[in-house]
């Protein structure tokens, strides 16, 4: 299991690196789809079917919106050599990557081995959810009953995002 997920994550990294350095914007957008659909396979291997359903449909809708934005404009990118300011940003990002990777390696060694239960609240949720909520799907019971505030907050974020998109594009309502 660990080997399979590592191989798929390696493919996702290659896809992301190609998406950053592509010359054509349409190729970059489609390479972003590699990362999204590889994530669907990772969710299925990690025994999370709810997340796989949501991620595959959301990724398709995101790709449709990005392609609609890119096709409406000029598609080439003026790929010039990095000048002085470009070199500064590359060196800054490499330094940041090295520092962050070192600290992450230090902190992830305190976690348990991949595969054993690492969270402390897992056992009370699994045993108590069926009796206290009465649902057979544990994830739905957790999302709507034990953590109902998060769901209400998510609904608020969606309403705010729709309001923001309509305001930025200045779409008029009915007269």
């Amino acid at each position, binding site marked *: 299991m660990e080997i399979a997920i590592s191989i798929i994550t390696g493919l996702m990294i290659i896809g992301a690196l190609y998406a950053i350095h592509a010359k054509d914007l349409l190729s970059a957008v489609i390479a972003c789809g590699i990362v999204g659909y590889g994530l669907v396979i990772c969710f299925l291997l990690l025994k999370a*079917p*709810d997340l796989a*359903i*949501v991620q595959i*449909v*959301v990724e*398709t*809708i995101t790709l*449709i*919106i990005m392609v*609609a*934005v890119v*096709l*409406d*404009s*000029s598609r080439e990118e003026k790929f010039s050599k990095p000048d002085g300011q470009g070199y500064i940003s590359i060196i800054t990002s490499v330094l940041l990557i090295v520092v962050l990777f070192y600290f992450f390696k230090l902190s992830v060694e305190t976690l348990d081995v991949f595969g054993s239960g690492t969270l402390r609240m897992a056992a009370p949720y699994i045993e108590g959810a*069926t009796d206290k*909520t*009465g*649902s*057979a*799907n544990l*994830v*739905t*019971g957790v*999302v*709507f*009953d034990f953590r*109902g*505030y998060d*769901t*209400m907050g998510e*609904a*608020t974020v*969606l*309403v705010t*995002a*729709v309001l923001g*998109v*309509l305001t*930025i*594009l*200045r*779409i*008029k*309502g*009915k*007269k």
Partner: protein
Amino acid sequence: MDPLLGEPAPLRRGARGGLIKQKNEYMKGMTVIVKKTTQLIAGMVFLYGIYVIIHGHLTPGGGFAGGVIMAGSFILLILAFGSDFMHLTKEESGTTMYENLATLVVVFLAASGLLLGTRIFFLNWLPKGTVGQLVSAGMLPLYNIFIGIEVASSILTIFLALVIFKEEISE
């Protein structure tokens, strides 16, 4: 002066000479094969979304998954038939009404626990029944239905605003 929202949009040629295409081809709809297949399939996709929402407490799925599937069926119809399918004009359609109503109903359902005398928000006060039946788990199916309607309307409004309505130029 706000450079992003404060001035009217310029004409078809950008400030540095970038091209802006005149009229998109995909807005006219697709070929006959795509239209016929969409007529056969779009209703089944919508029904599958309703099935995933209603059985949210028995099988994997729930409110969010069913909501995005329902939005996906509408997006399929609009992309296959072009932008004059549902008489979409340049104005905002009525999808935001469903979204706001569904959010309001969710908040009222959550606050209905307060009316019963207890001081708990989001109380699951309907009878729970036996695990595995369709009518069980208290108020969870009601939450699933209204969150599903809300998510579907939001994603449909975002899609319409970004893909169809963005041709607007003059104020």
